[in-house]
């Protein structure tokens, strides 16, 4: 798709006024739901996402159980009203692929061997969608898992970099995603810096890729700080009382 939209102005400002290495505004709240064992509400730009965790509990049907570890079932779902043209309810191929890559990323970081035969279910609901819902969803899932007290090696953090008008930038917005040249969503384990999720579409030279990867990793680290603050905000008051 082509467009006459100028995604970066002469002063290096992007459409929404951000600099090349600046994230959209992120707001995270932990423990927002009553029934779920852990939950998180996240706003990331115009994205609004709820994540809820159930488990560890016995995996059913039984044949899905792994005798050595818990299975992690992430379910990424977009609400029918979360996009401009109403989406038919239920999973489509895109959401099933995203559910798969998020499940795999979480499986890496959860200490699944502690819960043989169990299932840990992570529900991610996109209530309002702009660009970057998979990173936002995975970030919310990490907080919800921590809120549920699921033992993890680390809290996964996710963020994308991309290329617009031949410049590598952090965290593509909607127009940038539509008319940009490349998108590179990743997720990392902030402590080790290892890459848990990585997809790339578009066109990057090897050099641009390296720049974008570094930028995205930095983004993940900022996201990680916001995640930790949200968890502190919830648990700090309780701790202070003790």
């Amino acid at each position, binding site marked *: 798709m082509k467009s006459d939209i100028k995604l970066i102005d002469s002063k290096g400002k992007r459409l929404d006024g951000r600099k090349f290495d600046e994230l959209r505004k992120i707001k995270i709240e932990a423990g927002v739901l009553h029934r779920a064992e852990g939950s998180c509400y996240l706003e990331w730009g115009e994205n609004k996402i709820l*994540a809820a965790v*159930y488990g560890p509990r016995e995996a059913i049907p039984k044949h899905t159980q792994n005798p050595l570890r818990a299975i992690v079932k992430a379910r990424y*779902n977009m609400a029918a*009203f*979360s996009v401009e043209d*109403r989406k038919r*309810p239920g999973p489509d191929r895109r959401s099933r692929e995203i559910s798969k890559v998020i499940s795999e990323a979480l499986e890496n970081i959860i200490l699944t061997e502690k819960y043989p035969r169990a299932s840990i279910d992570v*529900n991610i609901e996109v209530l309002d*969608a702009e660009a970057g819902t998979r990173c936002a969803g995975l970030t919310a899932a990490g907080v919800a898992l921590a809120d549920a007290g699921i033992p993890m090696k680390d809290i996964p953090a996710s963020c994308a970099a991309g290329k617009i008008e031949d410049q590598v930038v952090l965290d593509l917005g909607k127009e940038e995603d539509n008319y940009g040249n490349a998108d590179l969503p990743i997720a990392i384990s902030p402590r080790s810096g290892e890459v848990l999720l990585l997809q790339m579409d578009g066109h990057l030279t090897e050099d641009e890729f390296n720049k974008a990867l570094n930028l995205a990793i930095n983004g993940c680290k900022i996201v990680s700080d916001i995640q930790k603050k949200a968890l502190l905000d919830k648990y700090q008051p309780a701790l202070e009382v003790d």
Partner: protein
Amino acid sequence: MTVIPSIKRDYLSKLAKQGKRADGRKFDEFRKIEIETGVVTKAEGSARVKIGNTQVLVGIKMDVGEPYSDSPESGVMTTAAELIPLASPDFEAGPPRENAIELARVVDRGVRESEVIELDKLCIEPGEKVWIVFIDIHILDYDGNLFDAASLATLAALFTAKVPAKRFELGDDYTIPLKDPPVSCTSVKFNDVVVMDPSIDEEEIADARLTVATDKNGDLRAMQKGLSGSFTTDEIRKVIKSSLDNGKTIREQLYKIIGK
């Protein structure tokens, strides 16, 4: 199919004999209701309703499409509900089951049969193009009484929605033409006690359920009995009375929110 949780039943029944409920409410008393509108940017209208810890989000989307051949000058409305696994450890992913279908159909009839949406005013070109109103009910947190939460959120979302005429190059956006809505109140019966706005524990042990939607004139606009228990005609009449009372209060709260 679970065995009836008899300890819970015994405890709540004992309390009920003393005229009490587990959370201290009176038999005909609702939990605290919160209504928030405009919570989803992409939707034409949206509202989140909390009744106690129960939380329901309804989004309205609109599209342009063909009318039904038997009502060529009427807009179309359609209602779907999903009991997404986010909201309860007992909800499963997959196509809607009986409970979700009954919920969607009861909310749908409450709006449709009372002609809340003036569908004849949503015609663009007779027989060719009309507005389609999609009501999508998203359960976020399930702690009892989905019927009333879903139906109230639907009304709040509808009353704050805009027809996206501009996006479809059909002039300026405008509010959906709506009539005065009926308000739905649900009661359940267990061990011969009838309580309004059941908590999840009360729902679990309930023998019978009755939802009554009433309008501002105090008339009945829809009813739905559920579950395998029965009601005497006296009980039905009593439920109607307290649905009228609670309906009035809830209507006032709704009017405030939607600026009516």
